[in-house]
């Protein structure tokens, strides 16, 4: 195929393949005619020859056939795009993820069978989401209005209004018996702590996650507390405050309006979406602190002493706590004493899992564990100071946000005049929460 243009070649996806867990092609769609299935065999051999999946990059170039493989995995499935031009890498990856979103929306659970059972609908969808190698329209909600599973009804489908509509994220004529809006303020904390207790990295990713069931074309207005609004205007607030950085809005929010009078007003998409995202990089005190001491009283014994401290107000609770502690894979005969919760040994993960349902704030919970080690590994263990993976922690703290973001009001106005019920929840949870272990302690 001849390529034109003085400034490099246009960025396009030549073809798309969906592969099963054994890397056999389930389905393919060719758009540009410059790739063929034998190229995919080369991809398969690259994946098979890799020592571990983790060493593979999501974008692989095959020099011999001058082709780029861009792929993502979803459960057992591979979504693979072939390109022979200098494509927009991020756009391709984002597109593949959107595709997974769309299929998940259609088939609820996206797995091998859902591909096998839905060839026809997938072809139809692929025709709409990409034409001639260019992404076209990827809003699952709207697509599902004119491409329906089964296509049982004989009448011609409705014209895809929103595909070319000004409000492309919402179609007209929606009706709900009960009009409701759910707004979750979700903050996910990432935190890496060194063995000596120094916080290496701390960051919070926040999102206002919405789910709407609203009839018609509702106009929504969201009011947040002043502190947040002032920050959004880049005006510093007095005193010590946690700063929201890099606020991003969903495309439905009228940014011009926000710039002028600080109101967040929007016509929401139907269903679930992130209205606003933000980040906090100001160091904040970790909500949960874990101190793990690993000792070796003798060559064949290893002992763990773990303290978990909740560092938030006592009226709040942390729930669903899970502490994953690395344990040598050949350790045996665990003896565990935990003040709270249950501890299970998972040799296949080379870890033990300490699970606690609820811990209130300002509390310390302890756990001790002993393991036997086979004498062989005990001998080897003398010299090397191989690092163990970090202690990983999961938890949630409901009714709390690190940032202090609060919803003052959420108004829904629709011309038919119905009353919509807003439901607001706050939750803070662990994202990547790691406590590194001292590698010299053993």
């Amino acid at each position, binding site marked *: 195929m*001849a390529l034109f243009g*003085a400034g490099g070649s*246009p960025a396009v996806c030549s073809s798309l393949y969906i592969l099963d867990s054994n890397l056999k092609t389930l389905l393919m769609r060719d758009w540009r005619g410059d790739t063929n299935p034998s190229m995919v065999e080369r991809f398969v051999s690259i994946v098979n020859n890799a020592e571990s999946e983790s060493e593979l990059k999501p*974008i692989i170039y095959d020099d011999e056939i001058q082709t780029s493989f861009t792929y993502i995995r979803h459960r057992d499935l591979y979504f693979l795009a072939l390109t022979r031009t*200098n494509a*927009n*890498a991020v756009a391709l*990856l984002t597109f593949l993820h959107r595709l997974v979103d769309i299929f998940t929306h259609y088939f609820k659970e996206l797995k091998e069978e859902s591909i096998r059972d839905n060839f026809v609908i997938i072809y139809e969808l692929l025709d709409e989401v990409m034409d001639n190698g260019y992404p076209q329209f990827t809003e699952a909600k709207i697509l599902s209005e004119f491409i329906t599973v089964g296509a049982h009804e004989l009448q011609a489908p409705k014209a895809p209004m929103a595909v070319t509509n000004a409000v492309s994220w919402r179609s007209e004529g929606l009706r709900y018996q009960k009009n409701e809006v759910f707004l979750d303020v979700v903050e996910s904390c990432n935190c890496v702590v060194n063995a000596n207790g120094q916080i290496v990295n701390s960051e919070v990713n926040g999102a206002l996650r919405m789910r709407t069931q609203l009839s018609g074309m509702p106009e929504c207005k969201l009011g947040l507390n002043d502190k947040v609004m002032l920050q959004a205007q880049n005006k510093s607030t007095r005193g010590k405050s946690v700063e929201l950085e890099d606020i991003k809005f969903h495309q439905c929010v009228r940014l011009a309006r926000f710039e002028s009078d600080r109101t967040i007003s929007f016509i929401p998409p139907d269903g679930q979406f992130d209205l606003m995202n933000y980040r906090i990089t100001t160091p904040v005190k970790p909500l949960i602190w874990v101190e793990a001491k690993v000792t070796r009283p003798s060559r064949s014994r290893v002992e763990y002493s773990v303290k978990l401290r909740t560092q938030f107000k006592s009226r709040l609770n942390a729930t669903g706590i899970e502490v994953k502690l690395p344990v040598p894979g050949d350790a045996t005969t665990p003896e565990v004493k935990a003040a709270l919760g249950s501890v299970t040994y998972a040799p296949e993960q080379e870890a033990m899992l300490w699970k606690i349902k609820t811990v209130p704030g300002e509390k310390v919970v302890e756990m001790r564990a002993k393991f036997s080690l086979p004498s062989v590994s005990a001998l080897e263990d003398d010299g090397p100071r191989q690092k163990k993976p970090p202690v990983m922690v999961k938890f949630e703290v409901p009714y709390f946000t690190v940032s202090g973001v609060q919803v003052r009001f959420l108004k829904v106005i629709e011309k038919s005049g119905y009353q919509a019920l807003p439901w607001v929840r706050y939750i803070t949870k662990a994202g990547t929460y790691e406590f590194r272990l001292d590698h010299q302690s053993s």
Partner: protein
Amino acid sequence: MAAARTKRSEMTDISAALRTFASKGRPTKEEQAQRRQLFQKVIQYLTIGIDMSPVFSDVIMNAHTTDVATKKMLYHYITHYAQANADLALLTVNTLQKDCREEDPVIRGLALRSMASMQVPDLVEYLIDAIRLGLKDADPYPRKTAALGVLKVHDLAPEALAETEILEEVRRMLISDRDASVVANCLIVLREIDGERALATKQNVYGLINRIKDFTQWSQVTILETVALYKPADKSETFDVMNALEDRLQSSNSAVVLGTVKVFLHATLDLPDVHQQVFERLKAPLFTLANAGAAETAYAVWAHLHLLTMRAPPLFAMDYKSFFCRGSDAPAVKKLKIEMLTAVADDVNTYDIVSELCEYVTDVDAVIAREGVRAVGRIALDGDQNVAGIVDRLLQFIEYNQEHITAETLVQVKDLVRKHPRWIDQCVVAVSGIELETIVEPEAKAALVYLYGEFGQAMPEAPYMLEPLLDEFDEEESEEVRLELLASAMKLFFKRAPEMRDMLGKALAAGTNDANQDVHDRALMYARLLHQDPEAASRVIAGYKESVANFSDGAGFADKFGEQIFDEFNSLSVLYRKPAFLFTDDKPVEVPRTPDVIEAAGGGGGGSAMMGDSLIDFGDEPVGASSSRSAIDDLLGMPAGGGGGGGGGGGSGPGSSHNLLDLLDVPMDSASIPAAPPPPLVLRPAPSLDAATFQARWAALPPAPGCVSGPRVLTLGANAPAVLTAPPPLMSHLATRGFATIASGGAPSTGFKYYFYAQAADGAGTFLVEAVVNPVARAANVVLKTDAGDQRGAAAEDILAEAMASFAA
């Protein structure tokens, strides 16, 4: 066999059923449903790879169906097999044409898209008609489909398309169509046909930017690509463009954010100060993208951040904590982050960075562990600030007693002592405990062998460490190690002849019988050298080693194409670190060199060796094929300063020949025997130093003795007031004395200011000078700094004083 027969009979059944349905003029609802199921079966077989083309004619007999679901499947089937059955495909034209006039816009679009996708040359004529119709459709859906259809005609029959008015129509629609999705597809078509740069006109760009909110995110990506190629006329236009697009940085689609980043970066290329502010503005959205979202996308974003960081490390020095690795990061991301940490290390953050890097050295993933060691080694190598602590850290890795860590550490230590001789003692102590037989990797083994040879006088056990390897010279697989063994045995022989004599003899004998030509040549050269003139051999082999100023590394390649990769920001080029023409069919594009961000950004801070300008390796170390061959040439009678030029792999012509001269001039005992009296200071006739290194060293070094309590005042010759009316005369005078100028300025009324530098001819010392010269008073206020110690510092001051006094005398 049985299965094949079943397939064949099933195919016959399908064919028969299709024909039956085709003959029904008005199928009942039930029959329609049955037919739909039959088509589903056909599509299913097609998908799992069974050739369904035998029923092509039966399928198209059903083309008149009114059931949309069946129609879609039928079109899918036709487009799949049309190219192979071009004649039969023509039979569907009537139906397709009819469908292009259907009442339902979705059907019109579908028929048009199918017709365009068939890629049958005989259909072009019909297709062009259909596209003409589609482009004028009242509904946007067929219009946008028709637009992309134009591209398909273009691929199929560009001449036929050129004869029509269609492209003109598309160009008109790009500006005037009411519907954004149509405009977006027109843009796609014209970008491919007219070229991306041709589309980036002021009119197009402004029109698209003004409406950008109407477009889908994917269309915005295409628009941003076009805008990025547009060169605003002046600063205010640049700001207009950026203001209009700033809110795109808040998009939830990563591709839109990166597309906007590209516009901002490219629009400000010619405005260094703004460019730097733009970097600051873009950091937050980029870090957010890199830290949130899917792992694959995050990797691609990190690759882009890596490009920006390498372009201007000082701008990211404050953000070093963002580059710290998380346990959950993919190895590829960790690797990028470690490289970025190495690049951004400066006086302030180095301690934190090195501490963090030490954490990675114990990573379970050996690749990452080695990256950690390498990074610490690189920082020790590049940095002139508080290197002591870093070298300690590096040497501690040896105590971990892990094969891969020790191996990587050795490689770094070797480079370190070659560049910074002051760490030799400490490094020698640290490596002397390593047992050579525990090191397996050739590169590490060669490094350790090198250290034995080079510093054997300080390692009592060195000959005995080498002994087993020299005894089994033939069994060593790596020629890199064999070459190094020969070199080290030679060097050690001149230091510890009694212990080494037998071993060297055996090794040279084995080497001259080596199957590898380089090893053979090397052994032969050594043997002949010893035979001809042992004295000369000693001076050549064990002579003083000049420290290496800058190592050449892989950065050279990235540097060469750096601008072009930056130009192709937001594409695969960035991930591959190659410009597009190296991995696609594109022609190489000339990219004008743009002002260096570092200059603008770096301010007083030291530049980075990553971007270093001169990467010439002055090393005379006999590793590598070509250098050994050129050495033999030299020794076999070629004039030392002449024909040998162009020899060394990393070294350039003048460097290596010049160097050889130095080598031969220096008495061998000048450095290898510590007790020997220091030779008088002789300055190199043509020193070389880049500005960044000068700056960094100037900041790090204390003044020499004579200048400690303030500048030393030197006197100029009597005619200085008359001769020195501008800076150059003094510069050229001092150049003859070995002091080169790195910067100068000033006026006769205010006096002139100079920065000079000089280097000792034996390589042991660099001298940096700041001089404020008042020509009228014939006075030069001089501050001299050196890394060569007080004695040499004083000697250099004397040379300078003499040089100043003889100016215009």
